[in-house]
Each structure stands twice: as C-alpha cells, then as structure tokens.
C-alpha cells in the first residue's frame, strides 16, 4: 500500500453567481497515492476543473469551499495562511492547463517565465536559475534550450508551449502535478508525445499526477486509477483495468460505449449518451444521472446513492449495487 499524498474528504464547492447559487462539486472524497497517476474523467461541466482549482486554493471569486477538507501530506490546506499556501503552490502542487497559448504571458520570454518560480520560490540566483531553467527545458526534451529561453510564446508551436508549461510546473519539484486536459488543445501526434513525456517524468520524479481528461483512451494508457465524475459527484472509482473490464456505473458504461474503437474509420457514427448533462441550477432529486439512465427505477429519483465497494479499490454509487445502510 503506497502512502497517501493527497486526501480529499467531503469536498463541496459552492458558486454564488448572478444567475443563482449552485454546488459545482458535491461531497467529493478521494485519495491520491504518492507516485501514482489518478485519471479524472467526466463530461464538460462535471466539476473536474473546479475540483482541481479547489486543491490549488485558487477558486474563482464566485466560488468557495463550503465544506470538506483537503489534506496534502498530512497538512490541512484549508487552514494554511495565504503565505503558507503560496509556498505550497509550485513547490508541492503544480499545475498544467489546457490551453498552452493563453497559459503563458505573451510579452515575456520563455526564459523569464521559467526562471520566475526558480528565483522566487527556490531563491536561486539569476545565474543558477538560468542554468536550472535550461536543464528543465532539456528535461522536457526541447531542443537547443538557450535559444528557446530567448523565444516568446507566440514563436513556439502548441506542443512546444505545453512542454514549456510542464517545465515550469516541474521547476520546483512538486509532489503532485495536476494536469487539467493537458493535451486537449493539441493535435493527435503531439498529444501522444506530451502524454508519453508526462508519464516518463512522473516515473523519474516519483510524482503523483492528477490527470483530468475527457478521453478514456488517455486514461487507459496513462493512468493507474480512474474516477468518473458526473454533475459534481464521483460516481465510480476503480483501478484502470477493472473499470474497462467491469464498469459498474451506468454513466461509465455509457462513456465506454462512446469510446471510439482504436481502428475506427468512421468516428462520425459514435454513439452518445442520450440527454444532456443536468443543469447545476436544476439538479434532479436522488441520483443526478437517473433522467438519462437506461436502468433507472422509481427509487433512483428519491435516494441519493452512496458509494458501494465492489472489489479492490473499486466502488460505484449506483442503487443497482445496493443501498448503503445509513
């Protein structure tokens, strides 16, 4: 049993917007073990990014953690001061985002943006930071680092920019890397390269990774464990193999059915899950998925299903697997 690095318990994130209040993340609990890759999948709007930003304690102004705890290596992040949390960011948890173009400041050189955390967080001198920055660019397999140090973001391709973002994220040797759809904005070949790079670096640095994605194929290849989110809740969690062999939640089943087979020539004809994601303002009572669920019965509209353990590290929140006694 690996040691638990990150432990999230009953996390609920509430938004207060002009259109009304809603919970984007609802009663979410999970652990990330040191050195492992946890994939998070779910449709758009299911709360993946909000969960990630809650871990960073960088929620948008409209949002706040309304209940729950986040422990990183035993420390309760919610109880840290602003200054303490700043030294956690970058050094203990780092993050890579979806769009590598807008993630970098357009008017500063790559070198400057890469050296920033090295001088500010690690207190390196400019010369030491420069040397380390060039090393990091080499680590993410960017050719001729000194030249790239002088380049500006718009002069690089999407894949190169994402490598730079990864180098920035790794610069202070974090224990946990959150990658929020790191390849969604890239073409297929580049996607594979970036994911291979991430996997490789994760091994070498013995880092835990929270890999957020829409793509179950990515999860199958790169994650150790996976959790499926729907409408702000985790509906199923499992080691990767078991999820693909024995999906236990009807939503997971649906996602798997929508996955293109590897050699598919006609991706146009992919089946999709019927219906739309539940609106956060009008959450169905009981199980949020029941209006779209082919197995739904009367009780699904009344009872909020709790996670039921089905095997080693595999549980699902669906009434088909029984009701947890209160």
């Amino acid at each position: 049993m690996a040691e638990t690095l990150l432990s999230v318990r009953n996390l609920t994130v509430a938004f207060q917007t002009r259109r009304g209040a809603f919970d984007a993340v609802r009663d979410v609990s999970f652990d990330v073990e040191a050195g492992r890759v946890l994939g998070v999948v779910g449709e758009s709007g299911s709360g993946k990014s909000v969960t990630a930003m809650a871990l960073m304690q960088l929620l948008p102004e409209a949002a706040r953690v309304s209940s729950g705890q986040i422990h990183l290596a035993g420390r309760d992040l919610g109880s840290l001061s602003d200054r303490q949390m700043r030294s956690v960011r970058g050094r203990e948890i780092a993050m890579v985002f979806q769009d590598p173009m807008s993630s970098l400041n357009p008017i500063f050189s790559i070198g400057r943006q890469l050296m920033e955390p090295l001088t500010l967080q690690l207190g390196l001198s400019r010369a030491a930071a420069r040397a380390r920055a060039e090393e990091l660019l080499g680590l993410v397999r960017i050719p001729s680092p000194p030249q790239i140090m002088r380049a500006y973001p718009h002069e690089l391709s999407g894949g190169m920019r994402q490598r730079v973002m990864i180098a920035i994220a790794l610069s202070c040797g974090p224990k946990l890397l959150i990658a929020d759809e790191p390849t969604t904005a890239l073409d297929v070949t580049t996607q594979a390269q970036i994911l291979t790079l991430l996997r490789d670096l994760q091994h070498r640095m013995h880092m835990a990774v929270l890999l957020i994605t829409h793509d179950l194929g990515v999860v199958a290849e790169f994650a150790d464990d996976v959790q499926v989110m729907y409408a702000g809740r985790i509906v199923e969690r499992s080691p990767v193999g078991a999820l693909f062999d024995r999906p236990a939640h009807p939503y997971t089943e649906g996602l798997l059915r929508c996955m293109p087979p590897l050699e598919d020539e006609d991706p146009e004809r992919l089946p999709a899950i019927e219906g739309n994601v539940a609106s956060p303002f009008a959450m169905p009572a009981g199980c949020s998925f029941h209006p779209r669920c082919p197995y739904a019965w009367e009780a699904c509209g009344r009872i909020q299903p709790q996670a039921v353990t089905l095997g080693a590290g595999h549980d699902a929140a669906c009434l088909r697997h029984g009701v947890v006694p209160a």
Partner: protein
Amino acid sequence: MAGYILRRLAFLPLTLLIVALATFIVLRLTGNPVDIFLDINRTPEQVTALTQRLHLDQPLPVQFLIFLRDLLHGDFGESLQFSGSAAGVVWDRLGATLQLAGAGLALALILGIAGGIACAVWRDRAVDAAISSIAVAGQSMPSFWLGILLIEFFALQLHWLPTSGYGDLRHLVLPAVTLAAILMPNFTLITRTAVIELMSEQFVVTGRSKGLSRARVLATHILPNAVNPVLSFLGIQIGTLMAGSIVTETIYAWPGVGRLLINSIGHRDVPVVEASVFAIAIIIALSNLVVDVLQMLIDPRIHRG
C-alpha cells in the same frame, strides 16, 4: 526596428505636405492678411510692399509653390507682429508648450493609471464607484470652466498660486492640472478596463499556480500587459492633448505656441500661424512614432513592416 523608425520618418514629409496644404488653403480662404494687418491709415505703398512680401500678387498655385520652397528652407517668412522670423518666434515659445504638455501628460498618466488600477482591484466596491464617477464627471467638464474654478479658488480666494503667467513651478501647477483633467478621466477608464480584462487571462492563473501573490501577479504580469492599451489610447489622444494645451495656454496666459497661435490668427500673422501649426503637427507626428516604437518594445507580437 531601426529600419521601421527610418521608414516612418521618411513618411513624415508627406504628412507635413498635407498639413501645409491644409493650412495654406484655410488661411487664404479666411481673408486677406493685408486688410487686417494694416490699419485704416495705410498708404498704397505699404499695401503694395506687404502684398509683395507675402507674394499675394501671384496666382494661388504659384503662392503655394513659393510657400513650399521656403518651407524646405525652414523659412516661414518674417512675423508681421513681432520682429524676427516666424520660425524663430515659434521656436522661442516651444519650450513653454512642451513644459506644459509634458507636465499635464505626466500628471494625467500617473493619476489616471493609478486611479484605473485602484478601480480594477476594488472593482464594484466603493473605491471603484467613487473614482469612476469622478472620471465620468471629469470627462464632461469643459477645461475653460475648470480653469475658471481653479483660478477662483486657489488663486483669488486662497492666494496659494498665481492666477496666470509664466515663471517658477507655482505658475505651472494650475495650467498643468487643467490640462491633465482633459485626459485623466479617459486614462482611468481605459486602465480600469484593460486591467479587469487581463485579470481573467489564463496566464494570471499560471502566475498564481507558481506561487506568486496576487499583488505580484498584478505588478509583474498584469500591469506590463496593460501598458500597450493605454499607449494606444495615448497615441490617439496626442491631438487632444495639443488642442487642450492651446486652450489652457489661453486661459492662463501661458507664453507657449498655443497662445501664440490664437493670438496670431487674431492678428492675421500668417507666417506665425503657419509655423505654429507646423510645430504642433511635428510634435503630434513624432509623439505617435514614439508611442508606436514603445509598443513594439513592449509586445514582441507586434511586427510592423
């Protein structure tokens, strides 16, 4: 970069040619300087002499060509109301105008940008509401009215500052404030919008995720990106600044090119009017070039061919 600057400078004569043509036409359309300049007791000899000196006996196109020829030598002719060349008269007043415009612009930039940042940081709070309303009110306040109020209060009531004239720093305060008031509200509103927009950029989240504080992200990532929108606006407003300078110089009897220009129009001192308009046109053109070059230095994405 150097090539770009040279190419821009090469276009300057074209700009000035258009300015020359426009001034020439407007001045010839608005009456004969001889009638206005010579008094009722003029002799026919005086009329002939002045007509010849100003080449008014030639056909219009020829007049224009003569005008252009002299222009190439920096020669606008002799001033009619002052002794000496028109160019020299204007040159002597240029320092005062640059001093006023520089002080007014600096004041407007510093206060306007600071106000805009404060509005963006405390967006939708009392600070924002207060500063934004003052800015909007300031936008609709005519300068001459503000000038009168300032003179009444600070000069006539409190006797802190002189009512008008030129001399030490105390003379500069009221004119500079009056001029600054023209541009400041817009700088505030532009800065506010730019900073608020930049605050939702993804690179701001990146900065925070590196462990930077909110203040540091504002100072080192957001504000540098906000400079160019403000500069773009400044480029457009250099004309407004110069126009404001003319009004302000007139209110405060500030001995600059603006007041000279108004005065010379009244006296139909054609050479001085032309030289003044030219001086102002050159200031505007060069300022715009400086603004463009600064923007290129700040943002590597701008490439001007």
